[in-house]
């Protein structure tokens, strides 16, 4: 048991290392990943300025843009990873190795988180310095707690998607495409989701990013504390408690199904 745990942790660390090393070896990627989000944010901020919206809206956009970087990473570099491994032919190696598949996903998630955090911090700092966004941060620990809970919930969702991508490759690819922009919209990445109609808000409440974004904005921009964001914390904890075991179950189920149907390592399906 202990031996297997150590083995799985080694595998997770190695996968994290590969992701960080691979993700930062070619600097031109880094530049593109930092500049493009800042341009997107700028467009929204100028629209708000033109419409004479309250100054905290610029802050909403910057926090939204920072967190969107994580969502994009979860969708394309986490959920789709097993799919890419299958297409490039390295998936077989993972599945013949005596390791937990969750350890690999955990390593991918941590690596993706580290890489994206570096980019997200740049976006955040650039946004704050360029647009002079007023911050009112009274409870930094609450902000950190909300941030980490959001990240865990998002990556747990990514782990769940990973098993779907594993089996339904191309179909899942289209699903991810379908999820990207609607999630930006529903979670209120560039505006407070409370402006959405009630029924749409109900739909939004099925996305962990909605609760994370709302909570972080309240704490960092509006200066609120744990007293007002505790429902966000509870919601995120519930998401994590449901998504993590579900991801583990789904991965094991899909792997077994893949072996039964002979599609586990079949490419271009």
């Amino acid at each position, binding site marked *: 048991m202990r031996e297997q745990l150590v083995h799985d942790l080694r595998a997770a660390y190695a996968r994290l290392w590969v992701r960080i090393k691979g993700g930062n070896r070619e600097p031109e990627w880094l530049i593109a990943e930092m500049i493009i989000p800042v341009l997107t944010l700028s467009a929204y901020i100028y629209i708000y300025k033109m419409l004479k919206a309250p100054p905290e809206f610029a802050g909403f956009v910057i926090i939204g843009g920072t967190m969107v970087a994580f969502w994009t990473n979860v969708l394309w570099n986490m959920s789709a990873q097993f799919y890419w491994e299958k297409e490039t032919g390295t998936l*077989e190696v993972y599945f013949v190795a005596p390791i937990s598949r969750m350890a690999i996903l955990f390593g991918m998630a941590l690596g993706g988180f580290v890489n994206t955090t570096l980019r997200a911090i740049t976006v955040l700092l650039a946004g704050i310095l360029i647009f002079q966004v007023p911050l009112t941060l009274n409870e930094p620990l609450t902000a950190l707690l909300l941030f980490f809970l959001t990240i865990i919930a998002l990556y747990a969702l990514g782990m769940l998607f990973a098993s779907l991508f594993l089996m339904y490759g191309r179909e899942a690819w289209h699903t991810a495409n379908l999820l990207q922009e609607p999630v930006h919209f529903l979670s209120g990445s560039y505006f407070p989701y409370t402006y959405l109609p009630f029924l749409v808000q109900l739909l939004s409440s099925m996305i962990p990013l909605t609760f994370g974004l709302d909570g972080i904005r309240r704490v960092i921009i509006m200066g609120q504390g744990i007293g007002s964001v505790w429902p966000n914390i509870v919601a995120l904890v519930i998401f994590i408690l449901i998504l993590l075991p579900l991801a583990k179950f789904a991965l094991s189920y899909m792997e077994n199904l893949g072996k039964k149907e002979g599609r586990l390592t079949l490419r271009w399906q």
Partner: protein
Amino acid sequence: MQHCIETKELGRTFKGQEKKVVKALDNVTLTIEDGEIFGLLGPNGAGKTTFIKILTTLLLPTSGAAYVKGFNVAKEQNKVRKIINLVSGGETPGYGILSVKENLWFFSQLYGLSTSVANEKIKQLIVDLDIEEFTNSRMAKLSTGYKQRLSLARGLLNDPKVLFLDEPTLGLDVLTSMKLRSYIVDWAKKEKKGTVLLTTHYMAEADEMCDRVAIIDRGKILACDSPLTLKEKLGENQIVKIEVSSVQADFSFLEKMKGIVGHSQTRSIQTNTTTLKVMAREESMLSEIVSKLEEQKLKILSTNKAEPTLEDVYISLVGRGFEEE
């Protein structure tokens, strides 16, 4: 007695086009002993990769059972994975953006090696497989041959008790293939590190490397013995190679001739020639075949008697060569 690998009436079906059930493996019963280099020889689509995928826990059988070192591959998957490794020909041996050394270190962690043990092992394998000059080169920049050496190095990192090689020399040049074959034979025979199960459709490879060979076609094992014994079993059959000056020669008349065990042909568009290989019960049939070819106004470029090969064993069993699948 426990065998290294044992399969009992192993079967695997797939749903083909229009939901037609395709039998990839049909009641395969085999045993492979410790230290053997065992070859599974057959044309593309014969069921070789399916067999290996089941034994390496990548696929579940639809019937029967398979054991590696006594562990059931369907029920004790993690125990099996701890003692095996798989190297497939033409596979991507890792991440293109990482160097050879970095890729090997990464895989060593999947096999649970501590970094110090892994580094020693990697150093040794890089020397043994002659990839030193590319140690710090990105994998993406390696040639096909060096990529395959890297794959083999990856497959040996965990000192597997059973090494599965699926078409390990696919697409490699003659020299690289020879080097890899010789390394694998030394690994299994001289150093007695483990058992090898090899799938190939290269006859010479199976002949040169394997202690025993099973010939598989359409999911069924047709024969299983040492290459020498299999060839000896051809007995009194005569094998003749006839080269004719056309790629459009029609050999369908052979089907109607009595005493023909089987035949295969290799057509070369570059030289506009076809080499016909015929296995006949009597040598006297040669003149009859030649006259039938001449009736088609084909120029006979050469006729040679040939020594039996594993391909001839295959021809004698199924009546056709690999290339006619």
